[in-house]
């Protein structure tokens, strides 16, 4: 078999050196009663694998062969060819976690650069080496705030936080004796400041607000930060569309203590929902409670600059059940892709992408608003995604569009049964005007 380099003759020599007759002898400790060969088809060649797996890929619509307006926390952005091709290099692809810094300086320096990029974008002082994805990043941020609070039990979450993030928080919080209170949105689509203040009490350890929120509306970080500070809680800024950070005020300027969320937009393809790229950054006073891997700068024995994983006494392999998190892996390769992408685009390119996303979404929003029967329900400013209310149920309408190779948006009925006629539309730098005009025309004709 092509992934097994040992010949039969070599196997025989190895068995002789070990002092057994057959490989089966080495499995003596495995009871016969638990042994069973799997009922699977015979091995496939590379040609057959390409045919079989490629066949399944061809049964999916994708952003390259449709007019594509899906978002809801996962966006179709430009990724430079060099970012992906760099990931093919075996030194990046097939290397292990950099626990041995002398043979891992490439990975370590790249993570150090990634941490720096995240700090610059979020306006905070310390960022970790990445987390799984946005929802679990929010969980980790909340648990971090809870540890720092030393005994408080309530988290206040804006209803504008991605519903899958909120559901994930519930899963994690259920058995930890922590309470979640949701603060509703106002008519403009932004978190209601009064409701947020009312929800916060002395037991509150964190207030979390997402911007742009799940419905696309840009929030003022200061609203969440003020509510948090009034009760001695930490302010958590959640970002699910990270390219917005290139245009919008960074969380650090808006008083946030922790920023977290999804950085997929910064150089990671959609991957049908994973692997993605969670991030977390915070003020330096809280750095010793940050979860996950962290790379620091140091020196080698010759006094030259070098990098290594640091503050590992926070982590599970040392602290076991007392660790800051059970997390072990980070999203190494995705953090690398993102570092390459952010470095290439740089301060100018990231801003230009953000401006294009915003301008295209504004154009599309205005055109849809002109259609009879359609309405933009939120008056608040939006970045590159917005809610549309259709004159009929959104899910079947979007299915009819899909039959014409237009993926026109995400029906909100998926998340809230009351939102039957509403759907989310996202635009990015990848959408051409003609495509957007096509969507508008299809909506106008209701894609009959």
């Amino acid at each position, binding site marked *: 078999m092509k992934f097994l380099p040992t010949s039969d003759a070599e196997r025989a*020599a*190895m068995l002789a*050196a070990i002092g057994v007759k057959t*490989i089966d002898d*080495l*499995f003596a400790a495995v*009871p016969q009663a638990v042994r069973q060969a799997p009922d*699977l088809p*015979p091995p496939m060649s*590379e040609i057959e*694998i390409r045919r079989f797996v490629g066949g*399944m890929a061809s*049964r*999916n619509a994708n952003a390259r062969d449709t007019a594509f307006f899906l978002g809801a926390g996962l966006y*179709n952005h430009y990724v430079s060819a*060099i970012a992906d091709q*760099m990931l093919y290099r075996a*030194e990046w*692809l097939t290397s292990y*976690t950099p626990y041995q*810094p*002398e*043979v*891992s300086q490439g990975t370590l320096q790249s993570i150090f*650069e990634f941490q720096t990029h995240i700090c610059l974008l979020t306006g905070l*002082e310390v960022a970790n080496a*990445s987390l*799984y*994805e946005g929802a679990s990043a929010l969980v980790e941020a909340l648990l971090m705030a809870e540890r720092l609070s030393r005994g408080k039990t309530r988290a206040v979450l804006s209803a504008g936080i991605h519903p*899958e993030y909120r559901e994930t928080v519930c899963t994690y919080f*259920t058995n930890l004796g922590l309470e979640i209170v949701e603060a509703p949105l106002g008519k403009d689509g932004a978190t209601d400041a009064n409701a947020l203040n009312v929800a916060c009490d002395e037991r509150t350890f964190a207030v979390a607000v997402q911007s742009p929120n799940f419905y696309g509306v*840009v929030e003022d970080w200061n609203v969440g930060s003020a509510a948090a500070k009034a009760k001695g809680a930490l302010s958590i800024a959640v970002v699910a569309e990270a390219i917005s950070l290139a*245009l919008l005020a960074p969380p650090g300027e808006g008083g946030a203590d922790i920023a977290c969320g999804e950085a997929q937009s910064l150089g990671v393809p959609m*991957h049908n*929902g*994973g*692997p*993605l790229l969670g991030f977390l950054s915070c003020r330096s006073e809280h750095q010793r409670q940050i979860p996950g891997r962290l790379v620091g700068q*140091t020196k*080698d024995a*010759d006094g*030259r*600059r070098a990098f290594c994983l640091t503050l590992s006494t926070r982590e*599970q*392999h*040392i602290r*076991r059940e007392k660790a800051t998190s059970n997390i*072990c892996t980070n*999203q190494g*390769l995705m953090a690398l892709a993102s570092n*390459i992408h952010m*470095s290439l685009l*740089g*301060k*100018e*390119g990231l*801003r230009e*992408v953000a*401006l294009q996303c915003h301008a295209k979404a*504004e154009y599309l929003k205005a055109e849809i608003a002109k259609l009879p029967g359609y309405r933009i329900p939120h008056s608040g400013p939006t970045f590159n995604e917005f809610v549309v209310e259709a004159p009929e149920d959104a899910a079947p309408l979007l299915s009819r569009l899909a039959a014409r190779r237009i993926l026109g948006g995400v029906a909100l009925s998926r998340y809230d049964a009351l939102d039957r006629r509403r759907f989310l539309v996202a635009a990015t730098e990848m959408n051409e005007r003609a495509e957007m005009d096509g969507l508008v025309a299809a909506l106008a004709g209701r894609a009959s």
Partner: protein
Amino acid sequence: MSVEIEEKAAPVRDPRRPEPRPLPLVFERSGEGKVGYSLPPLDVPAVIAIPERLCRKEIAGGTQISEVDVARHFTRLSRLNFSIDQGLYALGSCTMKHNPRTNEEMARLPGFAASHPLAPEELSQGSLELAWRLEQILAELTGLPRVTLQPSAGAQGELAGILMVRKALEKAGRARTTVLIPDSAHGTNPASAHFAGYKVKELKSNARGTIDLDVLEAAMTEDVAALMLTVPNTLGIFEDRILEIARIVHAKGGYLYCDGANFNAFVGVAKPGLMGVDVMHMNLHKTFSTPHGGGGPGSGPVAVCQALVPFLPRPTVERRADGTFFLDYDRPDSIGRLRTFLGNFGMFVRALSYICAYGNRIGEVARVAVLNANYIRAGLAGVYHLKYDAPSMHEVVLSDKKQVDLGVSNVDIAKRLMDYGFHPPTISFPLIVHGALMIEPTETEGKPVLDAFVSAMREIARECVESPDLVRTAPHTTPVKRVDEVGAARNLILRWKP
């Protein structure tokens, strides 16, 4: 494992070689006016319809750099890494095997890489089918009826598994408080049990390095939700009394959790379902060859017994009678979600491609992995101390006990191995072997490589006697010399500053 470095005089320079300089940071390569991207002209009116107070002026300190500089920067950086394609990783319980490139190609097909999980069901049949097929295969390999692919990595899989156990017990009116974990377990086990709201009780291993049935019998009360067991354990030893262990746990109404980090030792040969395992996570980035990528992404599917099926994370992938696939969100007893969307789908594509390449011969993976580990053991057991001499499966745990009196530790041996062109073994655990050298070669190393590794380890053992300083000051040939990890933690520099 932290390493402290003493200040010392500058090393003698080889006059033929100019002083090597550390690579600049990407930020230090940046220069005003340089550009590394191009975008199409904006084809709609340029507007900013967001109040100025909600906007930022600039990304102060952000890079300005050309594509040429980026290509060179990241290529040069990559050359400072060791990787599987360069040589053997001796890391134990990490299963650093070859990463087939077919898998990379399949994961990058636009139908997968450029698809969105919220696309309408009728346009997502390919990805749903792939997830469904991978689940079927993992169920067959584990001998358990259902699998969730959602967990992002092994540790999240552990949490998902324990949360399902917890919910099943609570639903049955039998809420419990404690999870039992052997002292040889990986650190994520106690951490995951803790985040599921359980107290952890550690089980002391017996002299063979396995579960002591009397200790288990005494600890296994009706307040214990589960025993978390790594099979084979982190010493590479198979719990040969696994069926009795399962009986003891089940007799008290507990669940047997299997940490599948070491599934590579018996995949395709034996089935956890037949062992009495009720719930088990796997690591696609270990057993099923998806690349480690310098620390992730991973993927940690969890297989469960029938009693735990109602509690699987939401949504599950289901097949209708007409052969079409759909996502089932209507699962009222589900523990909920652990993350967004369906999981690390790109890893599912790679793992499925990998399993297809072996098909019904996948047991060869385990057989050769076990052969290789035992071959290394045979070559090194006399030279390095072997605390537990029970038969080894896919890995062997040696220690520095014979070298410690010479003033050389497992850290030094690990660092010296780099000079011989191998990645060091795991040295930070298992905690029950002091000075551990935990070695897992995997099945994708051939005899010549194993021979070279054994001879390097023997050579180092000789150096420990004859020239211990050479070992203590290693590595000597790596891109940087020994790195001051204590200094890094003492004087924290976690980012570049403009």
